[in-house]
């Protein structure tokens, strides 16, 4: 891998920050210029960046990261209930809690690698999910989900005698309400911070070690390196990111439910990372944005919209076309996701960033050879042979 100058990194960071902060303007023509959706982009972007530190760098495929998201959400809501409606303590506590949780699960799961690691993480996530629904109901409020009420103690708020006001209080940052645009800018700021941190981790010697774990763990072990502690650190970091994302979900909508922890949610984060390009810096954010955007757009289509859209076709053709297309939108948008995913894995396993890199090599060979892609850690290593994974 060619060394990337810090100047280029700074440029990338600035470009990223500008792109994120100008999101409300740029994405408005695409029907995505409202805070609810943009917040989701930012939150799942953070989640995917964190997941990528584990999966993209070390190659450990975890199928249980939704559990950390869930822990983060629950912690944040409890902080709103018991301490204060201020979001900072909630965010910090969530990161710490899910970090501890990740330490516990990672410590056990990382005793194995490959598919066994995947199944161990899956088993732990399913256990958390099942327990959240059954025995832990006093903490999680079971199927209803954990909600705020007007009569929650909120010790810190009471100490500073912040008025509760009418109805359920809203989350705030020192008086600034986190509903609407201010909520988005809060998430966006954290997204940029997370991106910066991930960039520093990727470029650091530690990040290099993580990539070494991925490319040949045995060789690393022979040279006397304890690979497990590196993998565990990556696991905990990505758990903290997931916790942060979970906390932000609770910040923008103070409600936590166990369905957030289900393994299909873990699958979704894997899809996001792969779609964008595992191992790249920008890829996961891109993947998260695209999937959340498609989810939002496709699931809102209905028969009538399709009818209008295809009305230029003659009737005999229009009917079957609408019939087929309607399978893929509305309720069935996940079918689109599945098909997209299949096509991607078969034809472009490196994700969208790999596609960008290939295009660059084709059209600007000199430029592409000179520096690695904007994403930095584009996957150039050949894919490992089976049995080694």
């Amino acid at each position, binding site marked *: 891998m060619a060394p990337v100058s810090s100047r280029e990194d700074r440029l990338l960071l600035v470009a990223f920050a500008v792109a994120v902060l100008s999101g409300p303007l740029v994405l408005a023509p695409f029907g995505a210029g409202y805070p609810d959706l943009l917040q989701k982009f930012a939150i799942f972007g953070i989640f995917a960046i964190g997941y990528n530190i584990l999966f993209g760098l070390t190659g450990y495929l975890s199928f249980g990261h939704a559990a950390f998201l869930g822990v983060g959400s629950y912690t944040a809501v409890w902080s709103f209930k018991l301490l204060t409606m201020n979001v900072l303590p909630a965010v910090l506590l969530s990161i710490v809690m899910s970090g501890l949780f990740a330490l516990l699960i990672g410590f056990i799961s990382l005793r194995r690698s*490959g598919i066994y690691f*995947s199944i*161990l993480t899956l*088993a732990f996530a399913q256990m958390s999910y099942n327990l959240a629904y059954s025995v832990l109901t006093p903490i999680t409020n079971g199927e209803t989900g954990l909600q705020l009420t007007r009569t929650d103690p909120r010790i810190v708020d009471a100490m500073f005698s912040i008025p509760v006001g009418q109805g359920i209080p809203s989350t705030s940052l020192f008086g600034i309400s986190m509903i609407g645009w201010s909520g988005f800018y809060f998430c966006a700021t954290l997204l940029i911070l997370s991106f910066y941190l991930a960039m520093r981790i990727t470029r650091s010697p530690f990040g290099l070690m993580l990539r070494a774990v991925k490319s040949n763990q045995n060789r690393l072990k022979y040279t006397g390196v304890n690979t497990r502690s590196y993998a565990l650190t990556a696991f905990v970091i990505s758990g903290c990111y997931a916790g942060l994302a979970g906390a932000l979900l609770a910040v923008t909508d103070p409600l936590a439910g166990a369905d957030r922890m289900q393994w299909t949610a873990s699958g979704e984060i*894997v899809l996001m990372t792969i779609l964008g390009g595992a191992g790249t810096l920008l890829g996961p954010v891109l993947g998260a944005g695209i999937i959340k955007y498609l989810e939002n757009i496709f699931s809102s289509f209905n028969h009538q919209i399709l009818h209008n859209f295809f009305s230029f076709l003659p009737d005999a053709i229009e009917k079957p076309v609408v019939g087929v297309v309607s399978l893929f939108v509305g309720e069935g948008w996940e079918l689109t996701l599945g098909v997209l*995913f299949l096509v991607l*894995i078969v034809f472009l396993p490196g994700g969208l960033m790999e596609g960008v890199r290939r295009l660059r090599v084709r059209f600007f060979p000199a430029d592409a050879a000179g520096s690695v892609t904007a994403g930095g850690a584009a996957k150039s290593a050949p894919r490992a042979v089976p049995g080694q*994974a």
Partner: protein
Amino acid sequence: MDAIVLQLLNGLDKGGAYALIALGLTLIFGTLGVVNFTHGALFMLGAFCAVSMQMLLRTSKQVKDTSVTFFDSYIDVPYLQVWFGDTGLQLINYAVPLSILLAIPLMLLIGILIERGLIRRFYHRTHADQILVTFGLAIVLQELIKSFFGANPIPSPAPALFAGSANIGAWFGLGDSVSYPWWRMVYFAFSLVVIALVFAFLQFTTFGMVVRAGMRDRETVGLLGIHIERRFTIVFGIAVVVAGIAGAMYTPIVTPDYRMGMDFLVLSFVVVVVGGMGSLPGAVAAGFLLGILQSFASMNEVKQIIPGIDQIIIYLVAVVILLTRPRGLMGRKGVMED
């Protein structure tokens, strides 16, 4: 004592389903070396074979109801009844077992298509890629079923003959409380028969011998001049058929909906891992073992001691086994130990 026997029985049919799915998974993994996350969805497809068989047999035409004389009233009468009378009704009654006839060719076809079209491209990719592509396929299958059959569970009852419960307690001189639904007993027997058939096929046919040799050492089999990859398609097809008929027969026990596959998938992977990757007897044994363990864990007496144990017992066992016996219960040395 009664309670213990009852839980043992309750575990058997669930264990049978786990064992059948895990058997297919192990077969695919052992020969093709592919981790197949689609298997749960294939189980679900099998269940929907039973549902569509039932719909097919119940296809009705409207007939004027002669018992109502005041006004024109129409009732739906299945064509089978119109054509064959009581024999037709019996056919409808036996929709679930009959659906096996539909499931076998259909699932075989689906299996061959999946292997030829998709899995074949992934023999030489990483396990992570295999997991991801089969996971994607599972989503696609699941969503297709949802768009055709809707999201609500569709009940498909067992034949009337097997509807009630058997009073097993009385047979063996135990209390009357030990009763067991007939259909579950049928399912248990069915799973044993299918497992026996698969093992017999592998043990007593030349094809099976090649497959077993391939499971042990694929490379050597290839060096001996046997085109092993050609057999993979059939092996995959068989595994898919086993999962399919397991699903079709399970419909009277659990009302099928499009999501049932995912639940079974996670559990059956745990079963495979506990049994030992690549070991067929291990998969069967672990299937029954975990099924029975799960039903014991859901006893009230046990739940009082350790609350919530029924929800996590299988995963807990998997974690313990994976950490203490990396090969699983019956895994061979050197097969996917890492």
